[in-house]
């Protein structure tokens, strides 16, 4: 593993972590809204949120590109603000966010749905506001599922390829992630290097899962 190889690993971990942190608030909120509330247009929102999960990743990448590319509606705003998005690390984060968001919402939604409504009802009769119930009852009881959702989102971000390559490109030192590096090395016929990266990807996934399990065990998560 060269210094350049480690740069790829470090870069991938950083952007995947950033992506997961950025989608966490919206993802958890969306999951709660879908689990606990009904409103007009809910099915439409559900469909849109699930879209990146069912579309081919390159298709999602293409949609993102249309949106934030120089000629796209958001792209023009970014251009005027002087922000470079496509073909930079920011586009990598964007691709990761888009592709892992549906997994986070799914995981957290199930976690919230599994919290017995009775607890929330009793809390309401005891005078608690919706916000207090969410923080002191729903979230603590859904922690296991939420952590699971976040780990899944993080792992998905690390493995993200199709959307990334469309909207961020595969620029060595700038946007090349772990997944893209495996692809590159394979293309060049450098299988040994590809397998090294593969090993690291597996090690990262294992570490993420192990850490989350340890965290949940320590909390003594009761039901």
């Amino acid at each position, binding site marked *: 593993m060269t210094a350049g190889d480690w740069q790829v690993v470090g870069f991938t971990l950083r952007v995947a972590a950033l992506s997961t942190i950025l989608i966490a608030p919206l993802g958890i909120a969306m999951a709660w809204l879908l689990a606990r509330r009904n409103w007009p247009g809910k099915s439409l929102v559900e469909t849109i949120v699930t879209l990146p999960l069912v579309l081919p990743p390159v298709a999602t990448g293409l949609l993102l590109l249309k949106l934030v590319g120089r000629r796209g509606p958001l792209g023009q705003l970014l251009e005027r603000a002087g922000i*470079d998005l496509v073909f930079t690390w920011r586009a990598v984060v964007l691709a990761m966010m888009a592709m892992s968001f549906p997994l986070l919402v799914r995981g957290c939604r199930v976690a919230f749905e599994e919290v017995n409504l009775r607890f929330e009802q009793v809390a309401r009769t005891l005078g608690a506001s919706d916000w207090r119930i969410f923080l002191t009852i729903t979230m603590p009881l859904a922690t296991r599922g939420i952590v699971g959702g976040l780990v899944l989102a993080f792992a998905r971000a690390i493995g993200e390829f199709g959307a990334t390559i469309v909207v961020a*490109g595969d620029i060595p030192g700038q946007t090349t992630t772990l997944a893209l590096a495996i692809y590159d090395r394979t293309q060049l016929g450098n299988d040994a290097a590809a397998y090294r990266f593969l090993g690291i990807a597996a090690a990262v996934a294992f570490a993420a899962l192990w850490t989350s399990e340890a965290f949940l065990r320590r909390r003594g998560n009761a039901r």
Partner: protein
Amino acid sequence: MKRLHILAIALLFPVLAAAATLRVSAAASLTDVLQALAPVYQKQTGDALVFNFGASSILARQIQEGAPVDLFISADEQKMNQLQRAHLIVTTSRRSILSNTLVIVVPNDSRLTITSPADLAVRSVKRIALAEPQTVPAGIYAKQYLRKLGLWSRVVGKVIPTDNVRGALAAVESGNVDAGIVYKTDALISRGVRVAYEVALSDGPAISYPAAVIGDSRQQAAAQRVLDFLQSPEARETFRKYGFLVKPRG
């Protein structure tokens, strides 16, 4: 006796009339011109051509891994050398059939002024699309050229590498990059870019498209016929029309 002859011919006719389907792996830059030539060839000979277009580096790799290909047309000699060294081609069939020139293209609505290669090093040019400069012929040629001009080190940080030359073209068409280096033939078929600078034949790298029949092909004779057709006056006229430089027959 006469009836027997007729019967024999009638029975043989389906066999005689059986048309071959040939698999051709060809460099991405040949997409449009070969797709235009295929129906002409089929009408003349009855043989159908099935194409696999992509970066020559990937195509060569596929052949090395045993992909069933009858004819290979690469965008540089190096990929063909690779296959020849591995004894995967019919050496006697190898011919260099075409050449090309490089151009610097910009998006149609670009407001940047690029009149020479040196302008690529200017600050306002932030992103330049090239086919992957380590492996894909178009990228290798572009890097060679920029190196020769002493511009590569000033430009390498802006390079957006794409899978093949058509990817670079698409990037420029989308407006998401400021400029790109592609073949002149690519610029000619595109409506979303304009040529900012054309590299003169004498200044640019020697571009060559070698073609050869693949050793494992079960239709070598038919593949050779395709290769002959691609060097025919009719085909050469079409290549010229698309902007390719046609090598003399040899």
